[in-house]
Structure formats: C-alpha cells, structure tokens
C-alpha cells in the first residue's frame, strides 16, 4: 500500500508537471494567436478591411538622436496590403547660439521662427519617401509611401521633457543608464540640457507592400527599419556598437512575418 502510495505520490507531481507544461505551451500558443484591431466591411465601398494589432518591436538599447520606438502591424484594405508603423521618435534640437545668452528669447521674432520650425520641419513624410526593412540575410526590402503625411509634433523646452516620454518606462531605464555613463565619463549633462529642445513625433505611417516585398516578408526575419521623412531618417532600432550590430531583439524579428501570416489566414478563412 505504502509502495503503491509512494508510486502514486511520484506520479502525481509528474502529472502536474506535464499538465503545467501543456498549460504553459497552450498559453504560449494563445499568445501567438492572431489579434486584429479591425476586421470589418467598409459600408461605402463594400471592401473588407483587416488590420492586425500593433505589435511592439524592441531592441537592447537606443540613445541616438533620431531613433524611434513603436510597433508594427499589417493592414489590408481593398486587396492591398500595407505595413503600418506606429511610430514614436524623439530628437534633440540645440538652441541656436544667437539665443543662448538672451535672458528671455521669447521676445525675439527669430526665436519664435525657430520654435515654429521645431513643429513644422520634423514631421513630413512625403509620397515617395521610403521605409527600408533590413533582413537577416543582409539584404533589404524598400517600401515606398504613396501619399504625403504631415504630422503634428510636440516639443519640450530645455530642461523639460515631453510628458509622454517621462511615462515611458523603457526610455526612463535607458536614461538612467545613460546618465550613469555620462557621470562616469565626468560629462556635465545639466550643462547640455539647458541648450536642448526635445521634439517628439508620433505618427502611424502606412507603406503599400508590392508583390515582391509581400513574398519576401512572408518568410523573412526583419532586423530593423530605417524610415525616411522629408528632412530626416529615423532608425527603428538599428544601430551598431563597438563590437556588434544591434538590431531588433530576436523576439521581434518575426513579428512582420507573423502579422502577414495572420492576414493571409484571415483572408483564407
């Protein structure tokens, strides 16, 4: 009896382990299931519109001036697929020297022009501008915008931050590490901070996917995106360090492929 009981006791944890493993794999499977932000029929045109939920892409680090956070999604409307990028970039703009020593530069019309440019210059994505998707085979796919987009930006004055940035935990963690490095290097961060405006650009950018790109993106691992605006390029987490290239995290490589497959399944279904 005791032997049988012992055997049962040994079996029970084993069964629990198996059940837990199955449950965990089920959870993992559930997480990989497709989620859609819209799946509807346009009442006016009768066309089906399907879009996957935005999926955040991440990297190990980001401290450049025109690097963007965000997520990716695939949208299909009227039979055309688009890569949609939920894009959030920050850039540091240095206060020009001519205003640096003024006690209150807001009286200077040129200063007001400078502020206007902060809002006006950094957020135009013209038709013909590109998104270059870098692949793990060390080639790239280039998508081209088919329409103009002008995006409203926000800026924060020197020493202040755009409110949404301060609530971004990931950015805050990076900032802590960055400040520690600056302190180690004995660089006076505060001195610089008094000269920099922070400009934040948020946009949802859509790029039509042509047949060749569609074929590749169904199979490819994407390691980073470089987005072109009228005046800038924004890296969605592509940079090199001294010893290695850091792109998206491994977990993000297949997110575009997975989203493409979700659309295919939805259309097929």
């Amino acid at each position, binding site marked *: 009896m005791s032997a049988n009981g012992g055997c049962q006791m040994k079996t029970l944890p084993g069964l629990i382990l198996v059940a837990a493993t199955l449950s965990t794999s089920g959870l993992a499977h559930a997480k990989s299931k497709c989620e859609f932000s819209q799946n509807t029929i346009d009442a006016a045109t009768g066309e089906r519109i399907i879009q996957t939920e935005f999926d955040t892409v991440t990297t190990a680090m980001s401290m450049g001036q025109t690097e963007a956070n965000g997520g990716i999604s695939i949208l299909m409307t009227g039979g055309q697929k688009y890569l949609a990028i939920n894009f959030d970039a920050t850039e540091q703009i240095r206060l020009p020297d001519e205003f640096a020593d003024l006690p209150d530069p807001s009286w200077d019309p040129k200063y007001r022009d400078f502020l206007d440019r902060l809002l006006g210059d950094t957020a135009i994505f013209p038709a013909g501008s590109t998104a270059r998707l870098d692949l*793990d085979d060390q080639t790239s796919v280039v998508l081209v915008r088919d329409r103009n987009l002008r995006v409203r930006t926000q800026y924060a004055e020197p020493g202040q931050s755009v409110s949404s940035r301060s609530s971004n935990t990931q950015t805050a963690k990076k900032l802590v590490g960055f400040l520690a490095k600056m302190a180690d290097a004995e660089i006076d961060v505060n001195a610089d901070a008094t000269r920099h405006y922070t400009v934040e650009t948020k946009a949802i950018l859509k790029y039509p996917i042509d047949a060749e790109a569609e074929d590749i993106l169904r199979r490819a691992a994407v390691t980073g995106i470089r987005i072109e605006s*009228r005046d800038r390029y924004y*890296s969605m987490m592509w940079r090199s360090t001294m010893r290695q290239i850091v792109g998206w995290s491994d977990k993000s490589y297949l997110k575009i492929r997975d989203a493409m497959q979700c659309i295919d399944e939805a259309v097929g279904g």
Partner: protein
Amino acid sequence: MKTLIGVLTIALTLFSASDARADCKYQWDTSNYRTGEKVLWTQWVMNKRVNAGLYGLLSGVKEGDRKYLALQTVAFDGFSASRPSKEDIDSAMVIPDNAKLSVLLADGTIFDLFAERGVVGDTSIVVNGSELDGDFQIGRADGYSFKSHSIVKFLLDDAAIAALNAQLATDLRLHATGKNYDISFGSKPSDKIQEVLACIP
C-alpha cells in the same frame, strides 16, 4: 606501417581542421530570401582602434559559392554648428560601386580588393556629445556631429585569399567618395583577416 602513419596523419589533419572550424562563430546563418542561396556571415572581428571616432570590423562572408571580406565601418566625423540638412546626412559617407579597399601587408606591399556594390552609409546625428558608445564620448560640445555606419562586401577570388593568407596585415584604407577611411590593426601586424577567412567554409 606507412599506411598506418598515412591514416593517422589524415585523421589528425581532419581533427585539427574540424577543431579550428569549431572555434568559428557566425552572426548570420540563413538563406537569401530572393535567390535561395545559403548566406553565412562570421561574427564581426574588431580592428584595434587608433583614431578616436573611427573603427572597423571584419566578417568573412559566403553567399552561394562566392566568398567576401566584409568591412563594417563606423565613423564619427563631420561637424555642423546648425542643424544638418538631409543632404548633409546623405553625403556624410558614400562608398561608390567598385570602391577600393587597400590592405597594407606586413612586407609593405598593398593588396587591393573591390566592392561589389557601393552603399550610402546610414548617418545619424549626435548632438553635443550626448551619445556614448562603449567608453568613448562622441561628438563635440558645441554642435552636431555625424555618426555614419556602413557595411561593404569585397569579393574574394582564390588569388586574393592566397595573398591575404600569405602575410599578416597592418592597415586598411577604404576609398570612399571625397575621403578615405584609414583603419589600423595597431602597432603590430595582425592575423584578423586570416582569422575570418579561416571561418569561411
């Protein structure tokens, strides 16, 4: 007896070859999505940095049957007191088609490799030295600097592989549009090129 020695010699040779290959690490091991060709890039090997703001990394590449030496260049140069234009960014690092990579060998001779395709380097802006990379401060304290990054592949034929394996190298010079990037292996000749070549299967 001779046969036994021969067999042992072959076995030892094979063992040491596989042992050397076992030390090789690969950054990318995949297939080209367009051609289906096998693509293999060794882990990047860094040159010794001698000038602040410029460093290079090497990788041995195999694509299909072709072999390449790839050079990754990261340069912090250019300066602008005002916000740089897009044209400034686009022209910061331009490596033309058929660009030359000169390898200075230990005996003082130069061996040239040529790029299959040119690239425009990816350039980002660094404001007031506000970016740190490793233990180096980048940029200057009174304006905008450029950080440019490129990866260029140089085709290797049998003669090139033999020449580069025959001697150690001391310096590299990448001939870009309007400027050259000089990357040194340091005070002593280096076997870094041979190291990556040995890992190209």
